């Protein structure tokens, strides 16, 4: 039983990829057209994914065999509850792209726009593919599409430091991708298949063993690097801080989530097979998550550059998600999965608002930006909402995840981690309160800050929209649950105790 939308599944991947390929051609005469073109492509993709999600809600998960081959022989695309993540993802892209139209004026000459938007579309297409593929090797390929376009996007601002940050990102990212390829090959050798469901089934027949563990470990390390967890986070701060703000929003909000979604996919395979005892692994995740939260906050406190501190807060927030995953109780995992989306939203708000402020004033450190709220009230308000939200204070989107994960921690009888989570978040607020004080309650020190004007509407609109979403989702926290809950509950019977 599939509805009409099921047939459209491959188009959700193909559209942005083809759109990316066509971008330079479309914009050959007028480079600025590329921005509108990318937006148009993403809009259509958004409609498509909305259709896919509606199909999911109406009839449950569905598959599509590429090239007419049945699953397990051909490449299967599978749209399940975790795949529903593509809808908010594309919607965020749709919001971010208009912001970039005017923002890029200061970042790059017009003729470099078409490649920029092509890369952005590639990135989007890669992530959609990553979320909907049912094939392990395909998972690797889409990871690489996302990663490669991300490396390039970091450097797109065009100065030497950007290239250096991008190269650092590339080296670490490439190693993690290699680990992933190795793990994929290992699973193929063991099971003779690349289809996720099939692999899971056959692993169950084979049972455990060192080789199975090795593959799992390789996947885990690979995805931890992609998600920038604490000991392997070194690539993130520079890359995210130096990229143009719309790119930072994409990278920090969504690309790091590739690691998390990937981890969930691997969980699906291994839990389905019931071949792994994950107690120790979960314990490690919990500790790493808790350390990530604290260390991310700790580093952020010493930053004066607003984008750098936002980058560090990504590490903290990934810590929440990982902590939630490691706690392995229903509420905690639900909280983690919800935060995958909420954090993307909040981080996009913060990065775009920070970008607006940097764009209008030319400064990027707190001490220079004092008093900016007087001249840019709306953008600053968005920044304030984002800050309150990322700390997890109600009534904002950030609170929802804190609530669930804390609930999960007590549910799993891990009360110390519950306390760590709640009070670790307050620790982060030390930094943000400094930021808000500087923006709102201190007099300007620079004339360009005192005379800055609000951003044009194409930039302000997205920022205001995202900030209001942060508030709305804080109150209507139940919405993302519709998708997350069934998926998580599916997983949990096999979850390591």
């Amino acid at each position: 039983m599939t509805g009409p939308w099921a047939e459209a599944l491959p188009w959700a991947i193909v559209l942005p990829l083809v759109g990316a390929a066509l971008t330079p051609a479309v914009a050959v005469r007028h480079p600025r057209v590329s921005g509108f073109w990318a937006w148009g492509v993403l809009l259509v993709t958004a409609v498509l994914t909305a259709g896919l999600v509606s199909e999911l809600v109406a009839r449950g998960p569905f598959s599509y065999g590429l090239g007419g081959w049945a699953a397990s022989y051909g490449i299967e695309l599978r749209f399940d509850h975790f795949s529903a993540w593509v809808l908010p993802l594309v919607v965020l892209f749709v919001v971010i792209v208009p912001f970039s139209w005017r923002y890029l004026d200061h970042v790059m000459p017009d003729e470099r726009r078409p490649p920029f938007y092509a890369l952005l579309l590639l990135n989007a297409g890669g992530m959609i593919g990553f979320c909907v593929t049912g094939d392990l090797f395909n998972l690797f390929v889409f990871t690489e599409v996302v990663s490669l376009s991300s490396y390039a996007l970091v450097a797109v601002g065009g100065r030497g430091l950007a290239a250096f940050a991008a190269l650092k990102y590339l080296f670490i990212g490439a190693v993690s991708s290699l680990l992933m390829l190795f793990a994929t090959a290992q699973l193929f050798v063991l099971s003779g298949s690349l289809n996720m469901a099939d692999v899971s089934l056959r692993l169950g027949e084979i049972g455990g063993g060192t080789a199975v563990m090795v593959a799992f470990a390789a996947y885990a390390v690979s995805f931890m690097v992609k998600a920038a967890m604490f000991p392997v986070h070194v690539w993130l701060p520079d890359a995210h801080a130096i990229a143009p703000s719309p790119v930072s929003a994409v990278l920090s909000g969504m690309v790091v989530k590739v690691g998390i979604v990937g981890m969930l996919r691997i969980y699906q395979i291994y839990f389905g097979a019931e071949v792994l005892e994950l107690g120790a692994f979960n314990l490690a995740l919990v500790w790493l998550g808790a350390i990530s939260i604290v260390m991310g906050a700790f580093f952020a406190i010493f930053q004066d550059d607003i984008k750098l501190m936002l980058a560090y807060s990504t590490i903290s927030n990934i810590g929440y998600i990982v902590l939630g995953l490691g706690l392995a109780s229903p509420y905690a995992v639900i909280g983690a999965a919800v935060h995958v989306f909420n954090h993307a939203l909040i981080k996009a708000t913060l990065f775009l608002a920070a970008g607006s402020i940097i764009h209008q004033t030319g400064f990027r450190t707190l001490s220079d930006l004092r008093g900016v709220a007087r001249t840019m009230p709306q953008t600053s308000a968005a920044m304030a909402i984002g800050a309150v939200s990322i700390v997890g204070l109600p009534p904002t989107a950030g609170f929802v995840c804190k609530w669930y994960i804390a609930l999960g921690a007590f549910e799993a009888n891990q009360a110390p981690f519950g306390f760590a989570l709640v009070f670790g978040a307050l620790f982060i607020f030390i930094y943000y309160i400094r930021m808000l004080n500087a923006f709102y309650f201190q007099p300007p020190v620079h004339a360009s800050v005192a005379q800055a004007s609000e951003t044009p509407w194409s930039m302000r609109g997205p920022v205001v929209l995202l900030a209001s979403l942060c508030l709305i989702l804080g109150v209507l926290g139940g919405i993302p649950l519709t998708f997350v809950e069934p998926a998580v509950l599916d997983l949990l019977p096999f979850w390591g105790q």
Partner: protein
Amino acid sequence: MEVVDVRPILAPFVSFLCAGLVFGFGRSIFWRRFFTFLAAFIKMALVLSMLPGTLQGVVYVYQFVEFTPGIGIGFRADAYGMFFSLVSSTLWVFTTIYAIGYMQGDRDRVRFFGFFALCVSTTVGVAFAENLLTFFLFYETLTICTYPLVVHAETPEALRAGRIYLTYTLIGGGFALVGAVMTLNAAGTLTFAAPGILGMESGVATLAVIFLCLIIGFGVKAAIMPLHGWLPIAMVAPTPVSALLHAVAVVKVGAFGVTRVIYNVFGVELLRELGFATPLALLAGFTIVAASTIALTQDHLKRRLAYSTISQLSYIVLGAALLTPLAATAAVLHIANQAFAKITMFFVVGAITRTTGKKYVSEIDGIGARLPWSMAAFSIAALSFVGVPLTAGFITKWYLALGALEADAWWYVLVLITSSLLNAGYFFPILHRAYFRQAKEPWPPLEPGRRFETPKTLLFPIVICAAYVLLLGVTAEVPGMPFSVAQVAVDGFFAPVGGGP
């Protein structure tokens, strides 16, 4: 009887909307005042319109949205919530009038009035919260919304005060969150209920942690003694903020939270069995005396009032922790009694500062001649705190003493008497200086063309609030007055248990 009605959510929403309008169109003085007043009156009308129903035992409920499965953001106007929202919405009207006069010509008034409205919105939200989650949402929002008001002056001193305020309240909020989460785990629900929602089966250790977390969480705002540090420092805020928020809204939200925890989360029966309330009562008794003693030493007028507030708040906590109906009546009543008396005092202090520039007790010799009406109002409020009959404060003390005897804890009566003496000790010198000492230098004369001692926007709320203190004192048994609402509320708390211990 429960009735689904939209008014419990409309009441906080009105001031929320007002805040939005003030932020949007507040640059025009006219529209700012127009929206603020309109919202204040609409809100008061909304709350008053529910009053007759409440007196007959009707509870208005409204489920807003499901936040998580089974736990929604819900509103429920029971008698206790009604009582609290009546107090805060009435006082909002007066404080608005006062603030308009007081803040004339001050900076950033859009921000001030916007956040002011938000604070009132969240206060009523707290009053009508149906469950602990909703309560917590509004409780934390209140913290955030008051911060811009505390640091309004933007001086380094104000920023420091703001930082301390946030540190205290946010850490408290963290404890409250942990408490709420653990409650949900232990009880499976968060909806406030009359006999409480927790039970012995959760284990004494868990219950102790929950009680500790929730009491620390809400006790921070209620300024129970080791947690009171923020309150005197936050007095750096403009006087209307100190008046409404640090005498009424914020601290009362804390005290309200403590009572909710005692009566609607744990329940009288369970707490009697566990005996957790006794240390809390002892702490409250200590706070009453200690804070009053510190108040004696304060020369700064607002700081003296702040310590008086700390002492008075613990009356509420004590009343709640005694777990008897009469003491509970005193606790509920004191929310109104203390609010009206303390806000009068803050208004007067603000008027003194605005008219003469004086901020210290030692500077106000002979001010009674310059500001006769204001000082008369101050005297009434002071008498109320001392507990002179025919003032509101007497009613509280009377019931609290009866409640203490009912609980076989006569030593609290001694605490009350000591506190009364101490209250007299720190308020009467002010009156003495104001009336019986010669001014050191002539007071600045009335500006030409003014008929009153101080701008009438300042004087008017002062007089009304002082009159109300008297009214509360003499009309305790008149139906429709706060006392009757308080009794309905207390009946609700004790309905499942029955009377004395």
